[in-house]
């Protein structure tokens, strides 16, 4: 059993993305060794078989390759909840401007957004980060790890750029 094999076994039994630290601890190996073995495992999986190694929501996880999607869909009959355009818009605003209040979101969108916010909380995509220390103590929303997961993001830095924003940052720097 090589370290690569053990890592594959751990990622198989894990119920979500696994942090490098946890893998290293379970394997009783150095992080740098684990990283090298993960990279080997990733190439091996990419080269053949139906599985692949991804970095997602701050950890490593194994998932199927897109080519198997049809058979899996027939098999699992998943009831994927599609996000509406307005829910996506609210989600994007929360993602880029977090922590943000309902009021601030509504100011940007120009429409009431509490229904969309509530449904995003229920889907575990956003959560109440904190409350503002102003009258009424409005809730401040932020995105969850589940948000990163459903958009295949490793962390918030991987968010696609808002139009123009990268240039703006350079100017500000």
């Amino acid at each position: 059993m090589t370290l690569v094999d053990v890592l594959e076994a751990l990622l198989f039994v894990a119920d979500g993305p696994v942090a490098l630290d946890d893998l290293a601890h379970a394997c009783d190996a150095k992080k740098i060794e684990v990283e090298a073995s993960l990279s080997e495992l990733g190439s091996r999986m990419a080269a053949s078989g139906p599985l692949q190694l991804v970095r997602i929501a701050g950890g490593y996880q194994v998932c199927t390759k897109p080519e198997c999607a049809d058979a899996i869909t027939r098999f699992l009959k998943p009831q994927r909840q599609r996000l509406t355009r307005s829910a996506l818009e609210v989600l994007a605003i929360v993602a880029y401007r977090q922590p943000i209040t309902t009021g601030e979101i509504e100011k940007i969108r120009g429409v009431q957004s509490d229904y969309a916010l509530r449904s995003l909380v229920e889907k575990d995509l956003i959560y109440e980060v904190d409350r503002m220390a102003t009258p009424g103590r409005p809730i401040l929303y932020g995105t969850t790890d589940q948000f990163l997961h459903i958009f295949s993001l490793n962390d918030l830095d991987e968010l696609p750029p808002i139009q123009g924003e990268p240039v703006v940052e350079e100017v500000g720097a």
Partner: protein
Amino acid sequence: MSRIAEKTSLAPAGLATPIPLRVESPGFAGSLATLFHLARDGRVDLSGIPLAPVCIAYCEYIREMREDDVDAAGAALLALAYLVERKAWSLLPIADPPPPEEIAELPEPTAHEFAFAVDSLEERHRERSQLFFRQGEAADNYEVPMAPGTVSAADLAKAFERILLRARPVDIEPLARHRPSLADVMKGVLRSVRSAGRATIEVVLPEDFTRLDVVFVFLALLELLRIGQVKATFDEGELILEPVS
């Protein structure tokens, strides 16, 4: 260069939002609202941004606007005037330009600025829906499997019966003396098997064992087999235990 962004992405009527004017210049690329905010916060050097094309684009927009939205036009005009004033001051050879007048209603970035991000998130979500992960509940119930090639449950039951017949019969005391926990018995069995390398069941049982000892040792053995710490085989009808390296 300035150009007008999609008009359909205008914020709903009735709200004073600046027009969706996108500015593209060497010093800045983004919406007029964002440029306004950056200028107000002193985070952008206006001297590097030609404002004339912005003004021309703005006039074009007003001309093409079918419905008269005075609020939107006014909000954008206010932002433009503010930018021109700030830039004018910054071009003058004075050290400290006067602080800008506080504008009551600031143009806020509008939802259309997020349109690109929403599109790319939607695309990512679509791609992501082609990937499948092991389901959480499956992992929750995950047990480390028994070693392949082990004896069957029926074989173990027979071995258990045989060894039970040889045990010293002792009446079960309802409130018996303190017994070691299953974890302790497991540790003992594992130690014996490891030190023997290859052992029969007698090796792991105490001398002059009772029926209760047999029950405890078998329970421990089953657990050790289940978690893959011990391997069991049959050799000429005899149960043989080996440690799993």
